[in-house]
C-alpha cells in the first residue's frame, strides 16, 4: 500500500486519494463541504514548491494555500489520473 503524505508534497499531474484533514473544525468542515472528504480523488494541477497550489477534485479546481495543503493527508493513487 502506498505511503501517506501531505498534499503539498505532490508534484503537478499526480493523482491521490484523500485520507484525512487536520486543523480546526471550521477549516475541516469548510473543506468537507467543498468535497474534500475521505476517499475523494484529487489531482494536483500546479505546485511550485512554495506559495499556493492548485488541485482538481469533483470537477472543480481549487487554489489552496501551502499551510492548508500541508494539513491534507493523501495517498498516491495507483490508478492513472
Amino acid at each position, binding site marked *: 500500500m502506498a505511503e501517506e503524505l501531505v498534499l503539498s508534497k505532490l508534484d503537478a499531474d499526480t493523482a491521490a486519494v484523500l485520507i484525512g484533514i487536520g*486543523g480546526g*473544525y*471550521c*477549516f*475541516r*468542515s*469548510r*473543506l*468537507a*463541504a*467543498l*468535497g474534500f*472528504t*475521505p*476517499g*475523494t480523488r484529487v489531482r494536483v*494541477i*500546479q505546485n*511550485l514548491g*512554495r*506559495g*499556493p497550489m*492548485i488541485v482538481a477534485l*469533483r*470537477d*472543480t*479546481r*481549487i*487554489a*489552496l*494555500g501551502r*499551510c*492548508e495543503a500541508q494539513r491534507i493527508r493523501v495517498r498516491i493513487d495507483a490508478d*492513472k*489520473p
Partner: protein
Amino acid sequence: MSDKPKHPIRVALAGQPNVGKSTVFNLLTGLSQHVGNWPGKTVEQKTGTCQQGELTFEVVDLPGTYSLSANSPEELIAREYIIREKPDVVVAVVNASAIERSMYLVAELLPLPAPVVVALNMLDVADQEGVVIEPHVLEAALGAPVVSMVASRGQGILELLERVRGLVCLGAHYEPNVPDVRSDHKQVLERIEQLVREHVPAGYPSSWVALKVLEGDRQLTELLHDRLHPEDWTEIQQILHEHEDAFLAVAGGRYEWIARMVRAAVVKPKAGQITLTDRLDRWATHPFWGLVILAGILGLAFWLTYAVGSPVQALIYRHLVAGLANWAQQRLAWSPPWLIGLIVDGVIGGVGTVVTFFPILLVFFAIFGALEDIGYMSRAAYVMDRFMHLMGLHGKSFLPLFLGFGCNVPAVLGTRVVDSERARLLTILLAPLVPCTARMAIVATIAPAFFTAPTLVSWGLVAVNLGVLALVGIALNRFVLRGEMVAFVMELPLYHIPNWRTIGTLAWQRLVSFLEKAGTVILAASLLVWALSSIPGGGIEASLLARFGRTLEPLGRLMGLDWRMMVALLSSFVAKENSLATLAVLYGGAGEGQLATVLRNHVTPAAALAFLVVQMLFIPCAATMAAVRSETNSWRWTAFCVVLLLVVSLAGGIASYSVARALGF
C-alpha cells in the same frame, strides 16, 4: 381562475458561487431590482419582482454559499431566510460543468421545508468541457423539478417560471429524494433526533436540526442548550464527543447521495483531456507569465478608463456642471452674493463632483465585473497571493485594492469579496493608500511646474504610496489586527464567455450604491467647506477656513508649507481634486491654467514635493470615509483610519521635505 394565488409567489434564489446565479437573477428581475443589505449585516441583499402573465414572482437573491453550515454570516442568512420567511419555492442554481460540487448545496436545501426547483445552468460550459447531462434522468432521480438553462443566453427562464408555478399553483407532485447520513452514523442521528424532537423552535424541521447538531453546528447546538433537559444535553454532548468527525460522515453522505443522483444522468469525458481552461491557466497561473498577463490586463484596464472615462468626465464637467453653474449665476444675479456662493460653489460644486465621478466609475466597475464574470479574477488573486501574504492578506484582497486606482470608494465597497472579517477590515484600512485618479490629477498639474522629469516624480510618488501601503499593511498585521489568517481556499471557475447584461447591471448597481453612499456625504462636505471658506465674509482669506489654516502653519512649516497649502489640503476632504481649485483661489485668483506659474513663484521644489507626498497619503475624502464607515459598521475604525492616514501623511511630508532640503532642492 383556480390557480391564481392571492399573493405574489415568493421565490428564494440559492446557489454556490460561480454558478451564474446573478445572471439568473438579472434575467428574472431586470430593472426591478432593489439592492440593500441584509438587516444588521454588511452582506448584500438583492430583491426584485418578475411579471409573467397574471403572475407576479417576488425574487430574493440569497447569498452565494458553498454549504449551509454556521461558519459564515452568509450561510446563516441563507438558511434562516428559508426557515423563517418560508418562501414558496427555493430555486437552486447548479453549475452543470461542476455538477458534483454544486449539487452539494441542493443536498443541503432539500431537507429544509421549502420545495426546491433545480436550475441546471451553464449547460454550454459543460458542453464545451465535453460533459453530457440528461436533465430528465436527473429529475427522475431527484424527485424534484430540474430545468435546463443557459442563463447567459437567456435560455430556460420561461420553463423555470413554469415549473415554479406548477409547484405553487398547480400542486405538482413533489417528493424529493433526500440525502441520508452515512450508514455508520444512522443510529446516533436517530438518537439525537429523539432527544431534540420536542424542543426545536417552531418552523425548524427536527430531522434537519438533528443532522446539523451531529455536524457540530454551533448556532443550533447553542440554541438547543437552553431548551433541552440538562441530562439530554449531557447525552448529546457525549455523543458529539464520541463522534467528533461526524461532519465528515454527513458531508461524505451528501456526496455519496450526489454520486447516486448524477450517475445515470451525467456522462463525463475521459480523464486527461486538455480543456480550454487548462490551456489558458497554463499561462494565467504561471508564476512569471501570470504576473505579466495580470500587469497587461490591469494596464489595459487603466488605459480603457482613461480613454473612455476621462473625456466623458471632461464633457460632463464642461457642459453640465459648468453650464449649470453659469446658468444659476445668471438667474440669481438679483440675489445677495452669499446665496449665489451657496448655490454655485456649495450645491452645484458638490453635486458636480459626484456627477463627474460617474464615467470613470462606470468604466472601472464594468471592467471589474467583466473580469469577475469571465472567471479571471480568481486567477489574479492566485498569482498575487504570495505578495499579499506579507501583509497577512490573501490574494482575494488584491482586486478591490486595485480598484482603488480608479476611486477609493469602489475599492472599499469591493472588499466584500474578501471572506474573513479581519482580512476585510485590513483591506479597507489600506484602500485609501491606493492613489486614486483625483490625486493623480493633482500630481499631473503640480509636478511639471517644479520638476524637470515630472513623469518620474509621478511614478515615484505612486511607488511611495504602494511602499507605504505595504509597510502599513505589515505593521497593522503584526501589531493591530493580530490573529490567525483564515485558510486560503478558493475555487478557480472554468473560463466562460461573459454575459454583457450581467456586467452592465452589476456596474450600474455598484454605481447607484456609490451614489447613495457618497452623494449626500459629498454634498454635505461641499456645503461645509463652502460655509467655512465664506464665513464671516470678505473672501476666503478672511474666512474661518483660512484662520484654521493659519493656526496649522507651525505644523506646515515642518514641511515648508504655508497656510494656503494647508487650507488646500483641508479642502481636499470634499474630493481630492478640490485642492487645485483652492490653491488657484488662494494664490491670487489665478485660473487653474496659470496655477503652475504662480505656484513656482511662491513655493520651493522641496515644499512642492512635500505637498504632493502629503496629498497622496492624506486622509480619505468624504465619500471614501462614508464608505469606510458603512462597510466597517464602526465609527471607531473609521476614526482609526483617518488618524492613521493623518499621521502617515504628515510624517511622509516632513520626511520628504527634510530629505529634499538635504539634497539641496
